């Protein structure tokens, strides 16, 4: 999806890895014996990707669809071609070896699934399921003809059987089988519940390739094998039960020897068709299995998972390759940039942090934080990583994991040190009861002398943790221990922040900001900000950091009315947004982060200078990671994608800054709390002009109105009178200069 905005800007979608429930991450595995190369073709967002199964690399990206790709199928007539269907109402034929679009068929209805049968001589047949009208359409060239009506939108619940003689489809409690030769439909129904309270609704259907047998998966985890279904009355079925939850996908191997099933447990089960009781299991594959595919020669299996992962499994039930995209799931941590790998760090698999390389657009690795066996069971409350903070040099990572609700809250603070020899983060200290209540905020001290962490929690205290060696016994590794416990009138601390040199610590308690000296832990001053509790707190850096010398704390608070999806970029010295982008995506922007660029751009346009040194990445509700790019950059990307693989060797700037998010459940008024001081323009603007303008930072009272949405942007910062005088002094001096 490429949007053209007024400013000649392109909104470039970095990756659209996740599909919602109606669409399906359909994977198709294909083994091409003539060229001895193996490919996996899967729909990913609005493109079709071709992966090599041996190297796990993405070989081609077939782009052209304008909406979600919903299905991929190999052309039975030509094994070098692949069909893909999309919600934009088109079916496209591709040559996936060269990555060329051959044909486009336009249907005009959103296509939810695509099935291809080999035996329908010469001409392929397409079965397009259209949700709003619910007809079932078969297409030859441009003619459509409805085979079945009332079809489930789930593509797994329809299947061609035994060389295309019949088609089976399930919806709710009914299984429909349509025979092409007889042109007749048989319907089989199950009762909604039996005596044991089983849920009988169909979830998926698979047809045996050689035999008259249909396997159906059910909501309660049962698998039924139907036979004799070409008669109305004398049909039979046998029941197998292993899954404890709904069977989400079923698949027969090409010879019909085995049946593969998967569900939310993330266990791939291989049933032997001859010996009913014999089963093979492959557990702990990843997220819930959403789809299973088998290669045409039966040598490889492939499972796609809800967490945006594809496993390629050899038929001897050994995992051979893993293709992992940006892990889908709930994101509790802020988006953080690891300064060592320059990877984006956020929640990954349950209990893990994923390190996602933005340059290479792939997951680097996943760090197991919780280190406990994850039980794939619905409704089970398990530990999740809620907070993650890196120190400036990337040597230390602090994480907080939580489980349970208010009454029986369990949480642990973990500190991970970077091991130079192993080149990985290793667990150093686990603190199980760091606070009485939930930790709201934490930050590392940026100073180079001491390694220090501050945590603020809802129990009204903030604690300072220090890394120290045990002096008595030298054998033990350095570990973290509590150094200081601070509180302020029993108020709940909400945020904490260190100044850039680490000498001052600011902790906000509801409406009050307290400033502490990190040497003596004495309370230096308090600043009050009446209009409401403080949501975010940050010290100025780089060009603004000189104001710390005169003890000014740059606390700005931006409140956004986010009715539509807009992104604002501010410069600390100016009250007006530097850049506004409307309707960047569907849904709300959840989080955003600035990441340093590998090589600075030299854009001459003043409006986009802030993009020269860093990139703004933002995450939408649908777990899409998007980014802005300029026209020239976009062209370059299109020219050669390989260029993105160039490793980043630019020195790390202490530069990333997180823009927090905050949402209120007031109708649609979602207020994004934006922290500025992005410093993205640190070199661009001349120092003298900054000095004159800078006062707006401190006496901020602004009202901005933009057409549809009213942005109320106000921030009061009250300083003590002494500070104010001091400020005036400096100001007058600067003016004299």
């Amino acid at each position, binding site marked *: 999806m490429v949007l053209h905005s007024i400013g000649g800007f392109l909104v470039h979608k970095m990756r659209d890895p996740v599909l919602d429930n109606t669409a399906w991450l359909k994977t198709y595995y294909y083994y091409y014996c003539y060229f001895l190369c193996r490919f996996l073709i899967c729909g990913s967002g609005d493109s079709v990707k071709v992966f090599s199964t041996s190297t796990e690399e993405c070989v081609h990206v077939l782009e052209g669809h304008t909406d979600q790709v919903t299905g991929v199928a190999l052309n039975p007539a030509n094994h070098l071609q692949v069909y893909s269907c999309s919600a934009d109402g088109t079916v496209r034929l591709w040559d996936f070896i060269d990555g060329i679009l051959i044909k486009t068929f336009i249907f005009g209805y959103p296509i939810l699934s695509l099935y291809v049968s080999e035996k329908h001589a010469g001409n392929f047949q397409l079965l397009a399921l259209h949700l709003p009208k619910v007809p079932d359409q078969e297409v030859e060239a441009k003619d459509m003809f409805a085979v079945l009506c009332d079809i489930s939108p789930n593509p797994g619940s329809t299947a061609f059987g035994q060389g295309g003689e019949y088609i089976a489809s399930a919806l709710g409690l009914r299984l429909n089988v349509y025979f092409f030769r007889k042109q007749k439909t048989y319907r089989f129904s199950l009762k909604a519940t039996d005596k044991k309270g089983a849920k009988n609704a169909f979830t998926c259907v698979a047809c045996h390739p050689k035999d008259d047998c249909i396997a159906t998966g059910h909501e309660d985890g049962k698998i039924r094998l139907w036979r004799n279904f070409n008669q109305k009355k004398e049909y039979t079925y046998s029941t197998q039960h292993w899954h404890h939850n709904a069977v989400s996908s079923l698949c027969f191997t090409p010879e019909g020897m085995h049946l593969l099933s998967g569900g939310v447990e993330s266990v791939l089960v291989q049933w032997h068709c001859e010996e009913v009781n014999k089963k093979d299991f492959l557990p*702990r594959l990843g997220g819930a299995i959403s789809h299973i595919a088998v290669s045409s020669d039966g040598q490889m299996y492939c499972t796609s998972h809800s967490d945006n992962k594809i496993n390629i499994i050899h038929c001897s039930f050994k995992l051979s390759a893993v293709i992992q995209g940006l892990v889908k799931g709930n994101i509790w941590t802020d988006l953080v940039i690891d300064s060592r790998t320059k990877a984006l760090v956020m929640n990954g698999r349950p209990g893990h942090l994923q390190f996602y390389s933005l340059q290479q657009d792939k997951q680097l690795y996943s760090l*197991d934080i919780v*280190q406990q066996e994850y*039980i794939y*069971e619905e409704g089970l409350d398990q530990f999740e990583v809620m907070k993650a903070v890196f120190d400036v040099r990337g040597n230390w990572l602090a994480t907080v994991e939580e489980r349970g609700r208010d009454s029986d809250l369990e949480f642990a603070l973990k500190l991970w040190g970077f091991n130079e020899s192993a080149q990985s983060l290793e667990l150093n200290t686990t603190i199980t009861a760091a606070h009485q209540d939930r930790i709201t905020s934490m930050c590392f001290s940026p100073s180079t002398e001491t390694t220090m962490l501050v945590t603020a929690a809802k129990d009204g205290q903030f604690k300072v943790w220090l890394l120290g060696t045990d002096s*008595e*016994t030298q054998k033990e590794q350095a570990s973290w221990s509590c150094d200081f416990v601070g509180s302020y009138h029993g108020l709940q601390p909400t945020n904490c922040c260190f100044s850039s040199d680490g000498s001052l610590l600011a902790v906000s308690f509801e409406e009050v900001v307290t400033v502490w000296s990190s040497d003596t832990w004495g309370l230096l001053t308090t600043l009050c900000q009446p209009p409401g509790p403080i949501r975010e707190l940050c010290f100025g850096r780089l060009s603004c950091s000189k104001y710390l010398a005169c003890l000014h704390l740059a606390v700005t608070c931006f409140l956004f009315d986010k009715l539509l999806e807009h992104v604002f970029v501010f410069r600390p010295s100016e009250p007006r947004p530097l850049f506004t982008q409307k309707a960047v995506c569907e849904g709300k922007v959840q989080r955003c982060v600035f990441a340093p660029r590998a090589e600075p751009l030299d854009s001459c346009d003043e409006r986009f200078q802030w993009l020269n040194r860093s990139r703004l990445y933002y995450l939408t509700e649908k777990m899409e990671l998007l980014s802005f790019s300029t026209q020239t950059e976009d062209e370059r990307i299109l020219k050669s994608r390989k260029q993105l693989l160039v490793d980043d060797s630019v020195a790390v700037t202490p530069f990333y800054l997180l823009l927090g998010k905050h949402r209120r459940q007031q109708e649609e008024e979602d207020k994004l709390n934006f922290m500025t001081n992005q410093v993205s323009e640190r070199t661009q603007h001349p120092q003298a002009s900054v000095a004159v303008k800078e006062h707006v930072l401190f006496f901020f009272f602004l009202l901005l109105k933009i057409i549809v949405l009213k942005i109320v942007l106000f921030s009061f910062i009250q300083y003590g009178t002494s500070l104010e005088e001091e400020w005036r002094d400096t100001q007058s001096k600067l003016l004299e200069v």
Partner: protein
Amino acid sequence: MASFKPTKVYTYPKLGEKVTEDTLYWKNYKAPVQIKEFGAVTKIEFSPVAPHNYVVTASTRIQVYRPQSQEPVQSFTRFRDTAYGGSFRGDGKLVVAGSEEGLIRLFDVGGRVALRQFRGHSKAVHVTSFLSDGYRVVSGSDDLSCRMWDVASGTQLSSYTEHTDYVRAGAASRLNPDLYITGSYDHTVKLFDMRVGGSVMTMQHGHPVESVLLYPSEALLVSAGGRYVKVWDLLKGGQQLVSLKNHHKTVTCACLSTTDNKLLTGSLDRHVKVYNSSYKVVHNFDYATSILSLAVAPDDEVMAVGMTNGVLSVRQKKHTNDKQEVLTKRRRTPAYRVFKGKNYIPKQDDFLVSKPVKQHLQKYDRQLKSFQVSKALDSALETWRRFHNPEVTVAVMIELNRRGTLKNALSGRDEQSLTMLLNFLIKHVTDPRFSRILLMVSDMIIDLYHDVAPQSSIVERLFQRLLELLGREAELQQELLQVLGILDTLFASLAPRQEVSGPAAPPIMLGSQQQAA
């Protein structure tokens, strides 16, 4: 495919004092040997020559022991009244002792009859010591005088009556035959120089002095009395170096260990404390009754402590060869395991097929892996594991709770396993490390079994005990909270004073300056 992650067993920080090198050193003694004397043991002294026999003064006897034996090798019993202050000459051949009747006797270590008797003191003599030349004896008495005696002639050489109260402590210099130090109940410590003919230095201890001690360098002097132990620097004219208050009753004795010159003090509060070179307490020995005397043999081989109830407690140092004996006793397991091809070195062109490493899991982990929750709890409650690694049992319970299957695992148990479970709970439920999960388990067990508990008398009794235990614990917690409340009010009452003292500070400082002036 990730492998199964085993149950995480938390390692809890060890409670109590930290293990340091000093504690390891001072713990390296065997269990003490108790020797019963006839009365309170007032003085113990080791002979400076090998085999370092020690002389023990108790009641009307002075006995000489060998470090290894528990029977006295020599016993001097010719005292009509209580004997005091038995001490060796520098060559370990003569012993001198004072007594309650004021007589000082001099013995040969080999003989039984006193060689000399020094008469002159009118009251009890508590302190006797040879000077370093070996020909003179110095004594301190309750008649306030210190006297010098000639061993050869048995006559009094000189007498000083400078103290104004009983003289109860004394030490002779080993480097200079003309110097000795006395401590008295008049709160002073005096340094006498025979050449001057009187005291040359007086230090105010502030409490009745019970013991004085010179460091081998003789630059530092230790005095003990009252609850204080003070260290004085003699080279700086008797300047107080440090004042230690680590005992909560009168400190009666002090001595130095020979390695590193660690200071040891014994007190009526039944403790012996060991100080390091910066005078921090590094180790503590507890004894049954109040301590009157204390001595450490050269090389710290033996530590002898005398107590008020007449018990002499002797500790021998452990040696490494003792341990080795124990090790050699243990049978070596037969080396029947032969690994074929273990020493095979692959050639350059060999294609190496790596063998998959099999993950070794504990029994309970294997059962957890296959979701056998009841069995996993059973194997976590195995006798050995339950007694030696309760944290493992608790970790399995935590894991079951996390999986939401703890109730299933606990239910359906027979009397035997329920008894086992309840006994485990009774033992550990009050342990703060485990109490969170174990309270949850107790709650579930009561929910599950309260209907059927009366059927078994054992289970019912255990339920009763658990109830009582929890009741007691609740009372204790309440009391602790009360104490916490008291402390809070104390701190709260202190806090405003601090604020007031801020502006009020200058006058106080002025006052102190005036005082100093």
